[in-house]
């Protein structure tokens, strides 16, 4: 059975009845590995993969059957001595880039990763240019009639 779980926000958004809401359980007690170090790695890893049948959830958070199977699979591979990178590659081979919640940095995701910082840089640049132009404009601005009169009065003293 496919079991889905929604955040209340998402549930509110998608309105009632679209998905079979079920209590969230995420990692089940019977999945937990005896070795705390391996289990800690498993938790970190499972936070990085998308539950493919859910609404934007990692397999660590989801209680869908698929998420359960993947959690068990990751733990089996960890026990077999695979590295984190090997497990990532294995899942990407099987499900494509879509399974990664943290997209890889490549040509396709260049703007995704750099975009926010480009906007920051462009914004800072624009502010700098605007400030410079304003200062120059203010320095070059001709004196008003009152200011000229005031200046003449001061110079006459």
């Amino acid at each position, binding site marked *: 059975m496919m079991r889905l779980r929604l955040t209340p926000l998402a549930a509110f958004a998608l309105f009632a009845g679209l998905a*079979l809401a*079920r209590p969230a359980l995420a990692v089940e007690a019977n999945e937990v590995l005896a070795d705390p170090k391996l289990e800690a790695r498993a938790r970190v890893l499972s936070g990085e993969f998308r539950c493919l049948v859910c609404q934007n959830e990692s397999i660590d958070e989801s209680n869908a059957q698929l998420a359960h199977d993947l959690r068990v699979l990751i733990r089996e591979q960890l026990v077999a001595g695979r590295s984190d990178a090997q497990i990532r590659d294995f899942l990407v081979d099987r499900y494509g880039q879509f399974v990664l919640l943290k*997209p890889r940095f490549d040509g396709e995701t260049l703007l995704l990763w750099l975009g*926010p910082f480009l906007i920051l840089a462009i914004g800072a640049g624009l502010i700098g240019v605007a400030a410079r132009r304003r200062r120059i404009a203010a320095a070059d601005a001709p004196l008003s009639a009152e200011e000229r009169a005031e200046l003449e009065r001061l110079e006459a003293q």
Partner: protein
Amino acid sequence: MIAEVGFFALLLALALAILLALSPLVWSASGDRAIMALTRPLMLAMAGFVALAFAMLTTAYVTSDFSLASVAENSHSTVPLIFKVTGVWGNHEGSMLLWALILAIFGALVALVGTGLPRRLQARVLSVQGLIATAFLAFIVFTSNPFLRLDPAPPEGQDLNPVLQDIGLAIHPPLLYLGYVGFSVAFAFAIAALIEGRIDAAWARYVRPWTLLAWSFLTVGIAMGSYWAYYVLGWGGFWFWDPVENASLMPWLAGTALVHSTLVMEKRDALKVWTLLLAILTFSLSLLGTFLVRSGVLTSVHAFASDPRRGVFILAILTAFIGGGLTLFAARAGELKAGGLFAPISREGALVLNNLLLASAAAAVLIGTLYPLALEALTGDKISVGPPYFNATVPPLLAPLLLALPFGQSLAWKRGDLYGTAQRLFVAFGLSALLAFGLIAVEIGGPVLAPLGVGLGAFVVLGSVAEIVTRSWPAGATLRLALRRAAGLSRQAYGSALAHIGLGLTVIGIAATAWHSETITLMSLGDTREVGGYTVTLAKLSPVQGPNYRETAAVFRVASAGVPQGDVVSTKRIYTVRGTPTTQVGLMTQGLSQIYASLGDSEPDGRIGVRLYWKPFVLLIWLGALVMAAGGALSLSDRRLRIGFAAVSSFGRASAPAAPAE
């Protein structure tokens, strides 16, 4: 009858909204004051009819009139009264009507309390709001009519989604919408200013209360949604970077920037063009959020096509308002005169930095939310952008903001003294650094970023306290004088300090999540487990029959060092109509921390899955948001901000280090 009255009221409201939107065609050129003055009764009448429509729909829900499709699909006769009422907006059609109702309330408020506004500006603002109302009422009438009848009427409804049968549905959506839609007022003011081609500090003074109001509501709305998710989901997360959450965070970030830029404009007549753009962008992001959520485009690109009328309609609204607003801005912004000059190191300069970082953070959320859609549309490749992306981009943009905040709020307007400011903040910075490094030292091998986060939050809190203290207590002054000066500080000064303190508290709460501990286990009756220094014993399992559900309640006895602390009750519930199981989390609050228990599946041998969490200082996350909103409300109550209050009276005075007693 009820449904027909409701639908007819909607149609009348739409007609009035169209009249309101078109009214400038009559008075704009002639400047006929009598016709211009008609915008107020038009707006009030429109609001009255939207309210009537909403009241009719609520009546249908409360009386369980299942001849209405909306009621039959989202309610049931056994649902408790409160969820019959909240069920009104627990579905697409009803929530759009709530959106329209709140838009109408804001419009009516501008008509009623905006009497101090220049007549022409008020009429313009009301007509722009009429235009927005036209779009949304037409959307409801033509694609999302909540008053559709079923024939024959079913004898019983299909129940409200169990996840939504929670007090959270009564609180979170209305507050969120009050925030979203509240920014429409700032948008309407911006459009009005662009059409009139005039904008000055007085404009900022008129807009600021509305912006602050919307911002305060949005802050609480998001926080309450976060707390709801926290206790409903069963594993204690509080923020998921879900696209629907992002849709509310973007207008919040932009709105926060707007609250600050209108301040610069009001005090110093600077940043005018940027403030206008920001007002347009903030409401655009609110609209985009509504669009993303309502069109279903986020679930899948293909869901968009499942109801093309709705999706296309919303897309048209979005294009018209965002495109129209930005086009008008591009055409007219050049004609606006630039305002006051300031040095880079000044309050204005700091607020420019604030705006730059907040806008970049909003951009990061926007890019992350839309990138997968754009990439799939362009190349067909599917990628996921999840929490790791947002955690890697948003905090690095906001951390410098937190560090700069205490300096910024202490700098003088126009030209500031960074050295003097640093001196004033020396104690606050020292204490925060001590706290951060103390935590690192105590927790060797523990998290490193979290203590820095706590230190940063503490710096924001202490820096805000220091700001009030140094402003009222000059060196060498007596305590009596200091208290008198403190009493003389404006509510706006206290409001902004309070809002910043709230932000600091939220940051500390978020950073403290690094110290949460969890125990995932299987328990039999009488078993005891440990979590965060507490012992938790499964004392009782008993069946309970509720109004429209039955449940199994597990009573956990909590003790600390042998001293009983009380019981935590977590239940597994089955809603009888839909047969949907849910888990009700058990919470025990200890100061600002919580013990959190939720039940999982049972094993064949009768043991039950249990998740126990110790969440130190977790309440600070939402408490901080409430304090932020309280700061907004306090600032709002400043009499200098009240609409219609003489526009120039406090000019210059606010730039003095301490405002004189009033």
